[in-house]
């Protein structure tokens, strides 16, 4: 009896420090600020709670383009990052040998020098007459008027680049624990390499794919840096709108409403995703 009580209390005790930390320093302040979305007024004269639910409809209709664009850019960059990093994680996990940690570390290093410097360097690399485009133009591979910066592709590329470590690490973590013996066993069972990958490696790395997609998609859909610095005249994402409305315009109700809509959409999307893929792999493993 007491041992079963102890067992049922265990998860709560384990989760307590994080629950307290996030409860106090994330949930409470966040709820306070999001409640502003239901208020009307301005910073100078104050806000009153008017249960102004119509703001959500207005926010969606005014910024539908930016919302859709965010999901488009976020989706593409997540997919590209997944496809680009899976082989890398795979190789590091299985063939990295003693270079494993060193390789991971190397891939993460650019993310230790502040995004401001990283982006300045990328702008230099991708400038119209820079080392890449300038050279290509000189040898006549691309037209003189071609540019990469200030385009939607530049925004997606920026998002993808910043997503690389967030995709790599969870993939690596789930792949590196796969036992070689299992693959060997699979090699005996299945004829082709492709079958082996599809039936053994891919399902076993599913939790990593899930975590990678969660981390990358959520952060990229809400991103504001990439579009602000690498984008053109029509690449604004919803993160930029929230940023501007909050900081520049001090329009707290609309900024809070937009943030709430964004978060709700992301959470619902992730919930659906977890239902469809996340738990299925869990069940597969449980049996």
């Amino acid at each position: 009896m007491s041992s079963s009580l102890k067992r049922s209390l265990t998860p709560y005790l384990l989760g307590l420090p994080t629950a307290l930390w996030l409860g106090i320093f994330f949930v409470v302040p966040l709820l306070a600020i999001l409640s502003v979305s239901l208020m009307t007024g301005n910073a100078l004269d104050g806000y009153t709670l008017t249960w102004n639910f119509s703001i959500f409809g207005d926010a969606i209709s005014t910024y539908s383009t930016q919302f859709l664009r965010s999901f488009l850019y976020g989706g593409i960059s997540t997919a590209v990052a997944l496809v680009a990093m899976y082989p890398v994680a795979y190789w590091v996990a299985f063939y990295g040998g003693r270079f494993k940690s060193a390789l991971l570390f190397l891939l993460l290093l650019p993310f230790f020098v502040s995004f401001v410097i990283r982006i300045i360097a990328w702008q230099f690399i991708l400038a119209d007459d820079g080392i890449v485009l300038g050279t290509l133009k000189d040898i006549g591979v691309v037209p003189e008027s071609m540019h990469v910066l200030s385009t939607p592709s530049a925004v997606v590329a920026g998002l993808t680049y910043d997503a690389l470590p967030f995709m790599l690490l969870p993939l690596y973590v789930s792949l590196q624990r796969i036992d070689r013996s299992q693959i060997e066993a699979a090699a005996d069972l299945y004829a082709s390499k492709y079958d082996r990958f599809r039936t053994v490696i891919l399902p076993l790395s599913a939790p990593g794919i899930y975590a990678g997609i969660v981390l990358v998609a959520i952060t990229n859909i809400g991103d504001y840096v990439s579009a602000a610095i690498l984008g053109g005249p029509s690449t604004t994402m919803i993160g930029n709108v929230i940023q501007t409305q909050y900081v520049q315009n001090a329009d707290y109700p609309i900024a809070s409403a937009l943030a709430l809509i964004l978060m709700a959409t992301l959470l619902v999307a992730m919930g659906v995703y977890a239902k469809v893929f996340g738990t299925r792999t869990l069940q597969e493993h449980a049996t």
Partner: protein
Amino acid sequence: MSAAGGTVRRPGAARRRPRSLHGPRWRRALLPGYVGLVVLVTLMPIFVIVLYSFNQAPNERVNFAWNGFTTEWYRRLFEIPDLTSALLHSLEIAALSTVIAVAIGTPAAIALSRYRFRARGTADLVILADIAAPSVVVGASLLGFFVYLGVPRGFGTILIAHVAFNVAFVVVVLQSRLRDLDPSLVEAARDLGANPWQAFWQITLPVIFPAILSAGLLAAALSIDDFIITSFVAGQTLTFPLWVYGSVKVGIPPQVFAMGTLIFTAGVLIAIAGLIAGRRAPKET
């Protein structure tokens, strides 16, 4: 499928090369070649930073016009005192917030992936919401909260904020490893008389250690990179990104690139040290 999650290796399995995984020679070179390419592309901005940290800058501002080679910026590295202290703050906060986030995030991840309990759904939701919340809203809400409570802003509040966003990433990364960690392993240990604490230290921790390391790296990178949330709760304390971002308006001093180069070099040295240490150790994980 019980062996699926476990790391019980068949004796000798680690040492034997799984010959069947190898294809023809050219195809074997394909994957490492691709990995090399990705590493190269990832490091591109670093190469630029390294190169231009040796560029002369008559006006003491970074410029991409090549003015000639110099090591001046390394000799004068610490000449801007507030930049130096900003960098130190960033490194301290990154280290501390990573340690705290891992320390509290690991048990939380274990709870979320190994137990079924009533509040699990809510906990999952909060973790995802923490990642999904736009930085500006998180920063502003925390500032309002600290002001309301009369907590002075500074190093401590930055640390609190960084842990608050780091911990969610730590939990998600660790979950991807813990989710299919074979419970029978831990139970076996318990049957053999290990208490939960011993079981954790002797079974769970060694198994999830690479995951903890990865999560920690991610947390440190996130902390050192954060600008928006930090700017709200920093008070009079400056961090590296805050200083650098502020200096963009008037031009970045070349010392910033020199510091970037040194961070990179230190990273490479750590990696090499790890390699050497790994060679000495009997078996790497």
